[in-house]
């Protein structure tokens, strides 16, 4: 008997992305560039985060026709973003055949209280998190993959680093806790005791954990790998750079050789200018604060 959409099938699929780069794309042409550069998957969305930030307005799931074009233009898996809590957008994306859904704070939230119950779906989900409590809540809702939120569209890595370091510190603390302390801590951070016990046993999140939100250079990608991420999402960092093809290729290579500085130097050398960056203090909208 075939069993589809099981936890093993969802979580296992995320394992295949590890040590790889997932790139934001807004059309079929960009998707082909990403695949050609060695991306392990592409993320379909209507505007890259830098443009959402600049133009404002409500950011929604991408146009379905566009998503279908992207799906038929590449052989690698295609992800797409749905608004936080927007069950219908997620159902539509599943019906179209996307391989993974990102319930993302980069889009304007549709629900001010609840995230999607991701266990109701056959397709797996990835969600953003800034700390261990948030990550565990998303896993409780059925997320098969976690990523740092970072601060999307800024080309500024500090928030992604902060989120990754926070999760790492909290995991290290959990590893030393006894059962009573674990129950108390679970209450403090609003996380399930059962999943926290898994974290304690594994010494890491029980699902794949990527970096996202602010990766703009090969060195940024390598930094996130050095901090213990399983792989990297790049949003605006590719197609807002001077030469997207060479930037995409260099970031893929940097993830493979993240712990080899000499190779990283060679990889970084030929790359054109990175996207323009923003200071976090100057932002009107902090996307990372969306989601609960």
């Amino acid at each position, binding site marked *: 008997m075939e069993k589809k959409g*099981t936890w093993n*099938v969802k979580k296992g699929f995320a394992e295949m992305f590890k040590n790889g780069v997932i790139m934001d794309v807004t059309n079929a042409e960009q998707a082909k560039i990403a695949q050609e550069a060695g991306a392990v998957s592409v993320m379909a969305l209507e505007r890259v985060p830098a443009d959402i930030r600049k133009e404002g307005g409500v950011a929604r799931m991408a146009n379905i026709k566009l998503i279908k074009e992207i799906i038929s233009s590449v052989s*690698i898996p295609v992800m797409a973003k749905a608004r936080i809590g927007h069950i219908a957008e997620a159902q539509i994306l599943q019906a179209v055949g996307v391989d993974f859904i990102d319930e993302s704070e980069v889009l304007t939230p549709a629900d001010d209280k609840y995230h999607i119950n991701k266990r109701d779906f056959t397709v797996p989900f990835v969600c953003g998190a800034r700390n261990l409590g948030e990550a565990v809540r998303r896993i409780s809702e059925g997320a098969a993959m976690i990523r740092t939120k970072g601060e999307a569209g800024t080309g500024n890595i500090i928030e992604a680093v902060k989120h990754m370091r926070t999760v790492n510190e909290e995991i290290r603390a959990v590893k030393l806790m006894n059962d009573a302390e674990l129950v108390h801590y679970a209450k403090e951070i609003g996380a399930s005791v059962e999943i926290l016990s898994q974290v304690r046993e594994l010494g890491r999140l029980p699902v794949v954990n990527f970096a996202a939100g602010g990766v703009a250079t090969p060195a940024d990608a390598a930094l996130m790998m050095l901090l213990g991420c399983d792989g990297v999402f790049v949003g605006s960092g590719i197609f807002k750079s001077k030469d997207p093809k060479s930037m995409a290729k260099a970031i893929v290579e940097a993830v493979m050789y993240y712990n080899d500085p000499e190779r990283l130097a060679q990889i970084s050398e030929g790359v054109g200018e990175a996207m323009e960056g923003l200071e976090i203090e100057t932002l009107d909208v902090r996307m990372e604060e969306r989601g609960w």
Partner: protein
Amino acid sequence: MYIGILGIQGAIQDHEKVIKKLNHTPLWVKTKEQFKSIDALILPGGESTTMIKLLKTFDLWSSLSGYINDGLPVFATCAGMILLSKKIDNYQKQDTLDILDIHVDRNGYGRQIQSFETDLSIPEIGEKEYTAIFIRAPKITEYSDKIRVYASYKDTPVLIAQNNILAASFHPELTDDLRIHSFFIDKFVMNKNN
């Protein structure tokens, strides 16, 4: 035994964990020189397009092919099977190492929403059925008589061997059942009978 795992992209850590549980030493292989220090090599699941590009960019393509053709024992899972195949029927432009005498369809069992787990009968590893996880798996469309079939699903081979190579369409590294890795090490690496 030193069991290398092609360390380019994909579920490398998952194989690493299994090899440690079996009391062997896993080594990530990212450079040509590292091929010399391994007794066997695992080609993990992940994205075959990504692996092919990086193998070529970093000049590992011909070394990999050379070592395998010279008899290095290899266990290929999912994307690894695609890399070794003779031809990819539904993406003919994609290059392969052309070592296993099979043709495959990439994602031959469908996209992620069609991915599944199922129980297989694999007599060589014991009577108990084996739970196999198929994720956007390659489907073997043609194979020659050089191929030995260890397991099939709906009449299509899913666990096969050719000389020094064992290959699976599914992901043995994602379960706690270590029998297939153990079978590979006993039979292909240490050449034990039974």
